[in-house]
């Protein structure tokens, strides 16, 4: 079986939907962060796949993927730090219980 662009895109879509589902349904902030990671990685697969099949000589897609990996790392660090801070002050990481900024 020849693995083509479409396969990559299907995997990527599935991954993105799983990520989105996680973000939308989880109450745990850490799980939401993990969902976000999945969505970012889905977009990475997209970028790399497009680069490989549509413009094999170029490196723009791969470079962009690297940037997103970096960004994902930063985001994870900041997000976890926020979760830690929220846990310390509110003693919970369930997002529906973190509502002190609601009017």
């Amino acid at each position: 079986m020849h693995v083509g662009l479409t396969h990559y895109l299907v995997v990527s879509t599935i991954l993105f939907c799983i990520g989105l589902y996680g973000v939308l349904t989880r109450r745990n902030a850490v799980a939401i962060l993990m969902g976000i990671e999945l969505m970012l990685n889905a977009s990475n697969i997209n970028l790399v796949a497009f680069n490989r099949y549509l413009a094999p000589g170029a490196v723009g897609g791969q470079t962009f993927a690297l940037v997103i990996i970096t960004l994902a790392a930063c985001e994870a660090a900041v997000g976890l730090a926020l979760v830690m801070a929220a846990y310390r002050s509110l003693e919970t990481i369930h997002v529906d219980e973190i509502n002190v900024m609601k009017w």
Partner: protein
Amino acid sequence: MLQYAWVIPVLPFIGFWWIIFAGRRAPGQGAYVAIGAMLGAALLSVAAFIEVLRGARYDASVVWATVLNRPIEVGYQVDPLTSVMLLVVTVVGSLIFIYSIGYMQGDLRYPRFFAYMSLFASSMLLLVLGNNFLTLYAGWELVGLCSYLLIGFWFERPAAARASMKAFVTTRVGDLFMFLGILLIFLQLGTLNFNEIFSGVETGRLAGGLLTLAAVLVFGGAVGKSAQVPLHVWLPDAMEGPTPVSALIHAATMVAAGVYLVARAYPLFFGTPGHEALTVVAYIGGITAIMAATIGVVQDDIKRVMAYSTISQLGYMMMGLGVLGFTAGVFHLMTHAFFKALLFLAAGSVIHAMHTNDIKQMGGLAKIMPITYVTMVIGALALAGIPPFAGFWSKDEILLEAYHYDQVLYALGAAGAFLTAFYIFRMIIYTFTGSLRSHPAHPHESPRVMTVPLVILAFFSTVIGLAGAPWWDNPFHHFVRFEGAEGAAFDFEFALRSTAIAGLGVLSALVVYHWRLVSAASLRRAFGPLYIAVVHKYYWDELYQYAVIRPVVWAARRLRTFDVYVVDGAVNAIGVVFVWFSRLYRVFDLYVVDGVVNLVAWTAKTMGGVLRYGQTGRPQNYLLIIALGVIALVVVGVIR
């Protein structure tokens, strides 16, 4: 040194403000301040008098305002007439101030009394210092104000409050005429300065009937202030004030301001054709003199006897001025100030002891109050005109001038002189001889602070007349004089006759009231209708009641009705209309303006209320909506 004469009225003026602001904290509760200022003024007045005696004169003006392109000047002058007045006001004033310490002791408004007295002294000094009608008029009205304040000093008593009002309003009638006279002079001559007015009269720029009118109008002010017929009715009532006030204001100085005015403006009167204006002055004075003297005979209130005596003596002064006896009138003003102040203060001493004014309740006080008795007899002799006391010299001169001028006036004056001697000794006999008729009273001699001024005034009343005695060439005549009205020379036979008239008056009083050879009741019967007229003071008050007060009150009531129904009605009608308008506006405001405002607010609130349900605060809700939105967009994009 005369250029510093302005300090004289300023001293008591400062005293006035000092006492008004410091009240009981001022030295001696204000008394020492007032007396200090007055004594200072008296010293300066003596100094000024000596300067003037040596021939110095002073007259200075500054421009105060410009009206109709005419400069209006104010200023002061010092001449013999002014210096005599300064001396009289400050010396008599100082003594009365000192006396007041005793008389007013323990009064509720003790400091205020001295404040008012100081203001009065200041105003009076301003009046006599002025070298123009404006300054004089300012002083004139200020002394009127002080008179009002001091007559009504015990305003808790309705009689005092009424008397102060009566005095103020009655003198104001005279002042109106005087103001018109001054205006007439100003319009004709364009100046208020005395000397310029007199030169205007001399050069004939103001002459004939107009001059007579102006002079008589100015004399109207004097009639009011000096209580001459027909505006004399206020002075007897003014006795409601404290006795020192009666002595200083309503006997010695303020009431003499009218006489001073005539003397000061003498060229104005003298220049009228045939001395017409002076004839008016003389007859008003003569009638006042005899009329007040007859009323004085039947008064039982010790101060009212004095009040009528004062009116009568002021009439003499006016008569003296009117019959071309310029010096005689001014001389009588001076002597009268001393002996009438003495009489009043002595009467005050009696009232202080007896707590009543009714001479019928007194009697036998001679033994209990020897100093008061002796000084009062001296005052009475001076008033009656017995030589060598002060009143003799001046009154004899007036009668002499009248004799040479007009026999009718002389007859009035001579009859008045007889009555003067009669009523004053009637009072003395009732008060001091016989036995005490009011048994609850415990009279006592007054304290020294009151008797010492009496003794000093008695001394003056004895000797001051000698300034006009013929033995040393009549120095007063050479000092205060007016060209053309020098007066006749002293006449020994005539003086004898005056003395005889006065002596006869004293004798009659003794016959009727002391030895009781003729009973007072039989006299009352003999004079029948005349007695009744005199007891009712010739019905002057009743006349005014019917001729002036009733019509004025009637007119005032009508005007009040007009005010209440027409003017107030119109105002109220406009008010009602606007109230209705505003009610209408209120409805509009409530439902339209407020309605719009509330609608806006309500809309915002409701929208907020609805939209707030979208703001759940859960990021996942938002994310879900975003995701659904993206899917919707993708679906829309694919279908197109």
